[in-house]
């Protein structure tokens, strides 16, 4: 049983193992609307941090109570994971069932994607599920033919933007943003398109970015897909000519904005949440651009790895991540955008509907090579 087994074995594998028919598609009920009390101990899932704020009374989707039971063991490769939040979520799912165990391997998502590809090259990955912090990584794994198609009832929980193919499904969203120092600017002083920054003298020598960072590269990839290579190149060159400063990652960018080292920067939205965690009084706020690459909403994604010994359970497990309880858990304890639209994000963030992401197939974000070449060409790397 080498690497070429393919994904057709799905039904056979489950047939011999589970006596219960609970994992069969027909048992999955349609989404519905629950009051808080109908859900499973919602108050225990929900976080209570200072940024949580008001929560809704009703949620639409599926409760873990209505999902098929999980049995057996699965291995999840966890890329990133918001400081243990994802791990705790999986821990909680495991705790819901007596006969279910989840083994987690955390590492950086691109590393794990590379690993899964190597594993698939060499034979068989031990992973059943890959849950990565960015869509690019799951996209690459899918492109390399290392995944199994997900059942519709799993993928249909989220808007199509967040599962451009059936090889993976988005779990939590992350929005590109412009963190700015409130001592330097007011919210309405920030341009609503990234194209405006290079021309604006207020930002000369005052901005930071992290070009080696995956999220930034995804942002440039998106720009390339949307505006074409030439325009992207010009923007990059203009920004550099404008004295943008390089950082190792986007937390450093957000932090630098908070400390006043920078006036503004490019980062994912949740890095500013992290800054608040450390320094609740940080003079830092977020702005969002409209309909351009700067407004990209990337997401963490999950997929079932080819040759998984238990693909049904794996898919069902992913479904659990998209249950109301888990989305509430992830959304209120972490800083990501729940992709189940009835579960709002925390803090004073706009809801996911209020964001104006560009029209873009998130899978294309995996096409980072040309981006790297471009970044190198303009000397940003």
């Amino acid at each position, binding site marked *: 049983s080498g690497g070429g087994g393919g994904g057709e074995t799905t039904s056979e594998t489950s047939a011999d193992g589970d006596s219960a028919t609970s994992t069969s598609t027909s048992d999955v009920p349609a989404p519905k609307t629950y009051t808080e009390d109908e859900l499973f101990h919602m108050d225990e899932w929900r976080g209570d941090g200072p940024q949580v704020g008001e929560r809704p009374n009703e949620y639409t989707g599926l409760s873990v109570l209505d999902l098929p039971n999980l049995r057996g063991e699965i291995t999840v490769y966890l890329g990133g994971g918001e400081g243990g939040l994802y*791990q705790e979520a999986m821990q909680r799912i495991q705790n819901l069932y007596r006969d279910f165990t989840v*083994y987690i391997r955390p590492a950086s998502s691109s590393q794990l994607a590379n690993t899964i590809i190597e*594993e698939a090259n*060499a034979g068989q990955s031990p992973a059943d599920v890959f849950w990565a912090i960015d869509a690019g990584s799951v996209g690459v794994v899918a492109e390399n033919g290392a995944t199994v198609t997900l059942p519709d009832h799993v993928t249909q929980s989220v808007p199509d933007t967040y599962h451009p193919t059936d090889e993976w499904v988005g779990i939590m969203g992350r929005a590109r943003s412009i963190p700015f120092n409130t001592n330097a600017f007011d919210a309405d002083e920030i341009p609503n398109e990234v194209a405006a920054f290079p021309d604006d003298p207020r930002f000369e020598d005052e901005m930071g970015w992290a070009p080696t960072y995956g999220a930034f590269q995804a942002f440039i990839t998106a720009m390339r897909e949307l505006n074409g290579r030439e325009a992207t190149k010009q923007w990059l060159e203009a920004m550099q000519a404008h004295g943008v400063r390089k950082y190792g990652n986007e937390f450093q960018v957000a932090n630098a904005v908070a400390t006043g080292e920078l006036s503004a920067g490019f980062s994912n939205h949740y890095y500013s949440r992290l800054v608040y*965690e450390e320094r609740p009084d940080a003079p830092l706020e977020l702005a969002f651009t409209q309909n351009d690459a700067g407004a990209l909403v990337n997401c963490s994604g999950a997929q079932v790895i080819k040759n998984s010994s238990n693909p049904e359970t794996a898919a069902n497990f992913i479904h659990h991540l998209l249950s109301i309880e888990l989305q509430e858990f992830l959304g209120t304890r972490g800083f990501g955008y729940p992709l189940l639209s009835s579960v709002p994000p925390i803090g004073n963030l706009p809801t996911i509907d209020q964001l104006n992401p560009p029209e873009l197939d998130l899978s294309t974000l995996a096409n*980072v090579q040309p981006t790297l070449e471009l970044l190198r060409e303009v000397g940003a790397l």
Partner: protein
Amino acid sequence: MSALDRLVAPFARARSRDSGLPTALVLLSGAIAAAVLSPIAWILLRVLEAEGGPSLLTHPSTFATSIALVAVVTGASVVLGVPLAFLTVRTDLPFRRFWTIAVALPLVIPSYLGAFTYISAFGPSGYIADLLAPLGVDSVPSVYGFGGVALVLTLYTFPYVFITTRASLLSFDESLVEAARTLGVSRIEAFRRVTLPQLVPGIASGALLVALYALSDFGTPNLLRLEVLTQAIWVEFNGFGRETAAMLSLQLLTITAVILALQSRVGDSTQGAYVGTRASTSDTTVALGRWKAPALAFCASVVTMCLVVPLGVLFVWFRRGSSAIGRTRLVFEWSYASNSVLVSVAAAVACALAAIPVAYLAARHRSTVAELIDRATYIGYAMPGIVLGLALVFFGVSYGAAVDDLSSVIGAASYLPTLYQTLPLLIFAYVVRFLPQSVGATRSSVMRVDRELTEAARLLGESPLGAFRRVALPLIAPGVFAGAALVFLTTMKELPATLLLQPTGFDTLVTYIWAVRESGSYGAAAIPAFVLIVVSALSMVVILSQEK
């Protein structure tokens, strides 16, 4: 003597006392070298996959930056390490014992942690800037870029030079200095003309570790924003340009090969370490006199830079982060520490065992084969952890698949153990990465054992193995132990290969630090960082207590 004769002479000489290479030893060492070299095969595999074939110099400026960084860090480490070794071994510096340990301790601090704390302390609006701001100082020199990276890397790697130089100084036959002084040569002259030439191999072996570390380190240049080869490799992997990454790795290995060749020239130019078997009876301590205060200040400032700054920052994080600790979901467990110690001890033992045949062969039978085998063990050390990790992922899984195939062919369950994501493969990865530290320390201690001693043992009826066990081993034990302890230290702080190859659910201090750092919970990182440093520091004390 003609130039050619001069070139050939050392080899002719080396061969002259050699009564043939022992086949078994060569085979064993060769196998060890082949094993630690195997990850290169993966790099080649990936390079060949590259579209349009392999292209050599893809990032010329990055390549140049890497070389410059290696040169500067190595030079600076020698400049720091050698005088400190001399001060703590040969002079009447007050509190020598304390300084010895304090100066060696930076080795236990992972350089990425050092870089982190340096950013916090010296970065724009870091603690130092905050402290100085009220005094009207509005800009501190940037820690970012080449200077910062070189500084931080030097601070956390120079102890390699310090330790190897110390070892050479301690085992140096002082009667030679005595001889020089009775010839009317002052102490300083004698140091330059007699001691130094014979310390060169020791200094060079420490400098080699520094150079290769500087070449292969990723965390520091990443944090301090310097585009070096490892950084480029990491970027490529992130962008799934595995072929380009492999090509860059090949460039990095080319530099490694050049460094190894350079080092073996230096190490050989004085034909190995000459060290007497007899202890000096006389009091050879140099009185510092009025240089005492500057010497103390020098030691104190090095220790401040290396230890006080990062520990201070960790402490501040710990204080500030205590609120955030409750917030992080990753709860520190003591099993992480015990797991770290477990794999590190296992790696140390494995390296010690693998190093002995290689080092013995290299020290006793100076031949091209022996030298190649010895050098080969250094390659893995210069391989970025992520490259090594992926290579071993590939081989680990391939091996598993082969075992599966085999069992399906013979139609029975295979009894061959799986390797992938098991401790043995992880420990093998550590051996690949850290074997040279063991080999270096062991090799120089073997050189110190007079060949006639093992000859005497054999004439008294011992087999080569018996002579080794009863005479050589007791005499080289401190070297073997010191090498193992170095491996222990570096394994304790190793991250990239650990992340890729750890058995699922097997968390260690560094993987925990990585996880909480990933979440930005600096406060939570402080505790495991302290634990890591304390455990490593204890083992450092053990290493140094092995010195006589």
